[in-house]
């Protein structure tokens, strides 16, 4: 009997060896004493759990959790649409899967010295900011003094971006470096600057601290994946083989508030899928940047301030589809369509939006190892589509071969 109790306790604590756990589970089916011992062990352990010091959850956590009860988003009409049907027939896996790092340049080779300095400064400010918004920081516990002091002591991120984007970064002058600079300034950075400004003001919530933490983490990875000399030691870690699950993206985007400069939007996530999306941090950074680009393009054009994100695996074999959807007016959709098709108007207001889509295009060329944009477009590997009153922006990413189950970062 004592042995049985010990086994039940070890099983409850997750320290019973796997083979013994299986035997114990089998025993539970037919042995009343085993079941009784398990119930007793669970209650003992639950009581110990209640000795934890009480801490309260923020309102926004409840909001996020109750979103589970909302009806599932239905992407079936989109998955049956012509572009996706076309993709199903044309997609073929490449022999060597792309796993990131292809969009990287050397920062010191950027010709514009001011740009070099500012990118370096932004990176270092973010390295200093990150621990101040981490889950074990004072700010996460409600004490904002250190965070406020830091944010007041550095130039605001939004002013820095504005200043750096005042003049277009010339592709002729900077080559591939232009793309790396834009990826660093236009993907997660606008949202990051929005939340850091908000936290530096008077009206903010704990959810903003959490959001800024995720944004800092993403932005730092995106910058390292864009400039190989900005932080070589950490880049070595980012380049190691380490599967990143769809759950990481879901956790971050689920119920989040998003901002692209002054345009704010609320994200609703689909249920994604269980399993890995990318193989290394540098690949995840590139994927992540593409997701931010989709959000940045769609969020300001949403009719109701809401947009939806979904990751779907196996709707197209060997592919993971990243989809962003929002209700839009016909005029706003046409604007998106022109951006996606590279039709530039005389207006400079859409200049950054064109760059966002070009960042996705460049990334897709690398991921699918195509040499020309027209090949990519013919294969329906990414695009913009309208169904009823919604716009869909999407891109397809090569799935990891034989990837089963969950994965960890």
């Amino acid at each position, binding site marked *: 009997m004592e042995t049985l109790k010990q086994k039940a306790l070890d099983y*409850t604590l*997750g*320290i019973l060896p796997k083979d013994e756990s299986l035997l114990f589970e089998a025993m539970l089916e037919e042995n009343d004493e085993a079941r009784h011992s*398990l119930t007793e062990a669970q209650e003992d352990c639950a009581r110990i759990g209640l000795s934890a010091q009480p801490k309260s959850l923020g309102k926004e956590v*409840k909001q996020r959790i109750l979103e589970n009860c909302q009806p599932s988003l239905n992407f079936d009409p989109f998955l049956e649409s012509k572009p996706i049907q076309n993709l199903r027939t044309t997609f073929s896996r490449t022999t060597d899967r792309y796993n990131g790092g292809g969009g990287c340049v050397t920062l010191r080779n950027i010709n514009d010295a001011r740009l070099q300095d500012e990118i370096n400064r932004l990176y270092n400010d973010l390295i200093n900011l990150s621990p101040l918004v981490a889950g074990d920081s004072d700010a996460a516990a409600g004490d904002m003094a250190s965070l406020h002091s830091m944010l007041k002591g550095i130039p605001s991120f939004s002013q820095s971006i504005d200043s750096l984007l005042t003049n277009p970064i010339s592709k002729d002058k900077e080559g591939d470096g232009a793309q790396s600079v834009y990826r660093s300034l236009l993907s997660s950075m606008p949202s990051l600057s929005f939340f850091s400004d908000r936290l530096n003001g008077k009206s903010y919530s704990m959810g903003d601290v*959490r959001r800024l933490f995720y944004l800092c983490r993403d932005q730092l990875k995106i910058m390292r994946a864009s400039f190989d000399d900005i932080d070589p030691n950490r880049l070595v870690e980012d380049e190691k083989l380490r599967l990143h699950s769809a759950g990481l993206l879901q*956790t971050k985007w689920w119920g989040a508030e998003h901002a692209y400069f002054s345009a704010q939007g609320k994200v609703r996530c689909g249920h994604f899928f269980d399993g890995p999306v990318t193989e290394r941090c540098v690949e995840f950074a590139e994927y992540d940047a593409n997701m931010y680009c989709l959000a940045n393009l769609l969020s300001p054009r949403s009719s109701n301030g809401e947009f939806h994100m979904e990751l779907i695996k196996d709707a197209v074999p060997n592919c993971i589809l990243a989809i962003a959807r929002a209700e839009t007016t016909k005029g706003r959709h046409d604007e998106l369509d022109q951006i996606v098709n590279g039709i530039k108007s005389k207006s400079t207001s859409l200049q950054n939006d064109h760059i966002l889509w070009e960042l996705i295009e460049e990334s897709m060329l690398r991921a699918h190892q195509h040499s020309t944009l027209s090949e990519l477009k013919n294969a329906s590997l990414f695009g913009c589509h309208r169904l009823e009153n919604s716009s869909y922006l999407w891109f397809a990413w090569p799935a990891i071969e034989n990837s089963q189950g969950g994965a960890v970062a």
Partner: protein
Amino acid sequence: MLKIENDIWEKIRDGDSLAFEQLYDGFAGAMFSLSLEILGDRWEAEEVIQDIFAVLWRKPEAYSPKKGKFSSWLLVLTRNRSIDRYRSRKRRLDRGETDEILQSRPDQANKDGAEKATASDEREHLNRAFSNLPPEQRKIIELSYFKGMNQQEIAEKLNLSLGTVKSRTRLGIEKLRNSLSTLRL
């Protein structure tokens, strides 16, 4: 605060969103406090709670009444998922074993006024029982419960025989059970 009606899981299984909200209101705080104590990271603890509630809503059959009381199962699941994350983080950072989390495990006698006000009599009763355990038993239960160490690891860390670790664990838990037999989960 911590009492969950027996039929709440059945209601959730049947898609009752109000029951889901009631469960959150009544129990998420205790789950979060436990997870935060283990992980020491608010965002990670929130993720644990978020994931568990998502599983409960989408796959309520993950629990079965055969697995014991719903409330106990929830707390054990919270503890085990938090420990998994803690171990995973430890592996990632590849850092040596330290007592940081345990050292930071708060002294229940030194809580500030606001926290005292929110603590229930039951919880105080529980904390008293935990504090009253002989230190050698309390230490082993803490290492096992809040740091996820197995008995062999604890034996090595504390330089004790495996048999001593097992008997101290059992004795400690029995003492807690006797002290807390009136506490309903």
